[in-house]
């Protein structure tokens, strides 16, 4: 089935931006419908029929190893739509717009973040990686800024670098394969979790948003690992 202009218009916004929050996607979809005189809501449910719209785009871009998928922000639970590469080893293919040294630096940073246990590294530690990639610190710093602008990285409140939602959505399989010892999966949704809540007693980790849903009605939450059952001390978590 061929794509209509509206689909292509919508897709181009994703190619240019990579990621939109659910709210932004809603706005983009509304603008798209207005521009191309399209029905915004489906007649039966009277809700925006974004699902089938995205579905037909996905069917057409799948052969190009691209996919629009939903992803949830680990920090605040906000859901987004991300355009991801599904090709193998997406980290290296992620963008030929970066140089080899830059990609190498990014790989090292990902490794450091995944292995940190907290899901973040200080900017000093991050900049110190530059020397191993034949880069100077100012260069590395402006590269990190660029990565933040393009939503691959983020700075968290204490000034540390962490992986942004776009990066996790794009590279989750890569990270799980590459760092099987350090990368953890969420006990609830089985997806990669970088910054989540962990049990004090065992290795169980879950996403903050998954924890919120799971422990919603619990008075005294306990570790979902049956064999552990330790009290789940979180809520302030980092």
């Amino acid at each position, binding site marked *: 089935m061929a794509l209509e202009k509206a689909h292509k218009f919508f897709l181009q916004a994703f*190619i240019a931006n990579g990621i939109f929050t659910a709210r932004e996607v809603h706005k983009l979809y509304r603008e798209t419908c207005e521009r191309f005189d399209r029905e915004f809501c489906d007649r039966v449910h009277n809700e925006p029929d974004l699902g089938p719209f995205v579905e037909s785009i996905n069917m057409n871009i799948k052969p*190009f190893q691209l996919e629009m998928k939903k992803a949830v922000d680990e920090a605040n639970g906000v859901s987004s739509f991300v355009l991801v590469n599904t090709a193998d080893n997406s980290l290296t293919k992620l963008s030929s717009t970066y140089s080899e040294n830059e990609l190498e630096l990014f790989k090292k940073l990902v490794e450091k973040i995944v292995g940190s246990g907290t899901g973040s590294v200080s900017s000093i530690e991050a900049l110190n990686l530059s020397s191993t990639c034949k880069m100077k610190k100012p260069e590395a710093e402006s590269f990190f800024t660029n990565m933040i602008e393009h939503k691959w990285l983020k700075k968290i409140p204490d000034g540390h670098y962490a992986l942004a939602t776009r990066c996790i959505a794009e590279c989750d399989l890569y990270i799980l394969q590459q760092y099987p010892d350090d990368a953890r999966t969420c006990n609830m949704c089985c997806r990669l979790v970088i910054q989540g809540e962990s049990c004090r007693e065992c290795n169980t980790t879950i996403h903050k948003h998954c924890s919120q849903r799971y422990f919603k009605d619990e008075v005294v939450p306990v570790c979902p690992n049956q064999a552990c059952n330790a009290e789940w001390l979180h809520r302030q978590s980092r």
Partner: protein
Amino acid sequence: MADETQLMFSQEEQTVSKQSKVLCQLSAEEISKIVVDLVRYLLIMSQKKLPIKRSDINKTVLGDKSRGFDHFIEMAKERLSLVFGMELIELELNSKSYILLSEFQDHPYLNCYSAGKTECSLLMIILSFIFMNGNVISDNQLYDCLRRIGIDIEFHHEVFGDVENKLKKDYVRQGYVEYSRVVGAEPVQHEFKWGLRARKELSKLKVLDFVAKIYGEEDPSNWTSQWEQANAENAPNES
């Protein structure tokens, strides 16, 4: 004369047969894999908005299948249009350089209109000066216009940086402006026009809107002639 045409003809035939030889040796699966790689490569490279060279395509994507270039590029072109709404254009005939443009004018997420990017406002200012001056402006005239709003191209600008370099190099390479010598002018003079990308991806109406905003003028129709031009351009557009 007859011999010459014959020679040309047979040469052409030769290239065609060389090409189809390359293609014949490949399975349908291999061909479609190459086209997929090519499309992906073009999409990624186009993010920089710079022209993509045939030699780079051969080196990075086609490799020993470079002889099938024309065929593969045609197939990629078709996919880019059908699936992504993008037009692959050879910069000039036989320039061996390609540029990928959006089918959509004034796409709010592709161009400068999207939220306060300084880069884009500089570009819009420049395009609007060209447009307001009657679609072409001499270099000195443009520099005067810029100076009047506090951008002196001889100095590093604290917001826009090296404006001259952007104007003559970046924007030219990205296809936003054309910079050329005025034919026959003494002493030598240069002029700026809208480039291919600007003509394709931006509408005059939007630029006029932008000018109205920076001049604090509510209604762009006060610039009668430009307004008419912009509307004439806009009329037969896609809905």
